């Protein structure tokens, strides 16, 4: 009896011991699963945090940031900036993190991937102004007549009010003036916040504070002129200051200098005039209209003396793509309009309330705005449909209206501005970009 009891107890102890060992083993494995997940999450968070810091330094930089490393959260992170391939003017930010973390099991640490490592990559490019449906340095009217005199509303605040709608990115480096219930389909960005009117109630997702620097006039002109000299079309009118008229006819263009063709009146292939798509008029204005084919940027710059008030782009009629991007987003036809001074919609008093002017282009006015010539003094002229966007120093007006109620147009145009989604990733050749960066893509494991 005594011996059998001892055998029984020993046997039971062995069985219980084996089971407890099994349970302990499960507990250890469970802890391993936890610590492995914790370790991978931790090292991932370090990599993401480092990438966030690196991205912020890049987006808000004054001096291009240098590579750096930092220890935090029990790990190490290295942030490096690389030239992107194949877009060499883009930047790839790589954040590589590493954490040494104890794993409790007897597993070979190599099988668990120790030390934990993770990499996050972000690709950034300069902010292109083509993507904005609305961009101003300041939300004030800045109408300058061709002779340099101010318009009657010069300096007045531009207000976004009930009935106004903006589709696409909208930004100002000043303050947005908001009253009533204007519509924005995206969060807007503003450098100096919002000036609220008495019935402020915008229909929008909200706003963020951001600043986008624009190039200097000197750099803008130099970059486009260099491109025009290297495979583009350069009209140097610094002597004589004769304006240039371009009438686009699909893949052809009629060139008239001055616009009555007295000095030159030729029709040629666009590819022959500007193989790389960049057309620059120096010391004069350029007048454009017609249907274009391919990717183009048409620009005009003034100068000194007789060219002081030059550098304007005159939109004499519809400027539209042959392959309409509104119906075919894969269209490769796109136009950039760059004015060193103003972009005018030419006065045409034959227009009526039912007239429509179509512009398919990204418009950029370095020191002026997109406006209608004498907008306060012309008949009610219908509607401007701008498919693309406008970036301007001041907030151009196209017409005058009495806010009512009822809202009544008095002079000029109403307008609809709609961004071209293609400009989120593409832009007309050598169209201006900001020195600021924005994210193109973000990769996390």
């Amino acid at each position, binding site marked *: 009896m005594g011996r059998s009891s001892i055998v029984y107890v020993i046997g039971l102890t062995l069985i219980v011991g084996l089971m407890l060992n099994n349970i302990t083993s*499960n507990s250890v494995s*469970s802890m391993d699963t936890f610590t492995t997940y914790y370790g991978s999450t931790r090292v991932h968070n370090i990599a993401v945090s480092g990438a966030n810091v690196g991205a912020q330094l890049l987006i808000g930089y004054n001096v291009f940031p240098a590579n750096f490393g930092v220890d935090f959260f029990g790990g190490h992170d290295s942030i490096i900036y690389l030239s992107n391939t194949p877009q060499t003017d883009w930047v790839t930010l790589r954040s590589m993190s590493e954490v040494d973390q104890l794993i409790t099991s007897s597993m070979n640490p190599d099988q668990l991937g120790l030390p934990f490592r993770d990499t996050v990559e972000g690709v950034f490019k300069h902010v292109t102004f083509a993507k904005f449906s609305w961009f101003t340095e300041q939300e004030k009217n800045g109408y300058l007549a061709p002779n340099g005199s101010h318009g009657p509303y010069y300096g007045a605040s531009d207000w976004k009010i009930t009935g106004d709608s903006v589709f696409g990115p909208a930004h100002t480096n000043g303050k947005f003036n908001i009253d009533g219930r204007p519509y924005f389909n995206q969060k807007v960005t503003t450098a100096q916040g919002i000036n609220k009117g008495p019935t402020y109630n915008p229909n929008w*997702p909200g706003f963020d504070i951001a600043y986008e620097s624009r190039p200097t006039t000197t750099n803008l002109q130099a970059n486009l002129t260099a491109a025009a000299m290297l495979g583009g079309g350069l009209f140097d009118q610094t002597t004589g200051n004769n304006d240039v008229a371009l009438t686009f006819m699909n893949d052809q263009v009629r060139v008239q200098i001055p616009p009555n063709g007295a000095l030159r009146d030729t029709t040629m292939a666009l590819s022959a005039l500007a193989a790389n798509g960049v057309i620059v008029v120096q010391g004069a204005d350029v007048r454009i209209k017609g249907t274009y084919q391919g990717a183009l940027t048409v620009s005009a710059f003034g100068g000194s003396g007789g060219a002081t008030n030059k550098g304007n782009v005159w939109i004499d009629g519809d400027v539209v793509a042959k392959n309409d991007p509104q119906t075919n987003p894969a269209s490769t036809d796109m136009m950039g309009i760059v004015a060193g001074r103003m972009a005018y919609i030419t006065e045409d008093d034959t227009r009526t309330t039912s007239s429509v002017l179509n512009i398919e282009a990204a418009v950029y006015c370095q020191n002026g705005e997109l406006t209608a010539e004498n907008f306060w003094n012309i008949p009610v002229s219908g509607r401007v449909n701008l498919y693309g966007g406008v970036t301007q120093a001041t907030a151009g007006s196209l017409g005058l209206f009495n806010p009512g109620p009822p809202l009544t147009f008095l002079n000029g145009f109403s307008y609809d501005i709609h961004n071209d989604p293609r400009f989120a*990733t593409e832009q007309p050749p050598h169209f201006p970009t900001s020195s600021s960066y*924005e994210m*193109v893509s973000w990769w996390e494991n």
Partner: protein
Amino acid sequence: MSVMLDLIGSLVIAGFVILMGLRLNETISGSADASMAGLNVQESMAELVRNIESDFRKAGYNVPDPTQTIVLADTSHIKFIADINRNGTIDTIEWFLGPPLTTLPNPNIRVLYRNVTDSTGVWTGGGAAGLGVTQFHLRYFTQVGDSIAPLDVADYNKIWIIEIALRVESPYKVQDVVNTDNSQYAASFWKQTRLASRNIKRHGG
């Protein structure tokens, strides 16, 4: 007489000892079973979570217009596009919960599927991503945290944030850890309240 009493007494004591041993054996076996089931559930959950996080973080990667990233957004079914393999082509990634499996003791168990198709629509990977899933619930939010109704196609371009809830259970009941007389399914629950791909959030496209 005393020998008989000794024999009877020892039989009674031996009986108690055997009963205690059997009870101990049952309890320890139950604990071991529960422990193993818990471990399996936890490992299954961890693996699923890693895959879900990895995929969802890449949503919209290299997509020219990130507002088009979400193709389908239902409560337990999501389809989005991304260059998931970084090979320059846009893939379609789909996660969805299958119907309950009827052959297991746990009637709530389903299969969570992950499918990847390339730009030509050819299936390139995925399949059953995890077993034992009893809940895969998705909620969608805008840039400012407003909820978006499932299957509201017009609002897919407003989705910035995705909330994911995942529950994994064992296929059979195991001993309760606290009250060993009860049994229940070993379970693990995970909730990611703010999973947002940076690629969806790109401003202005």
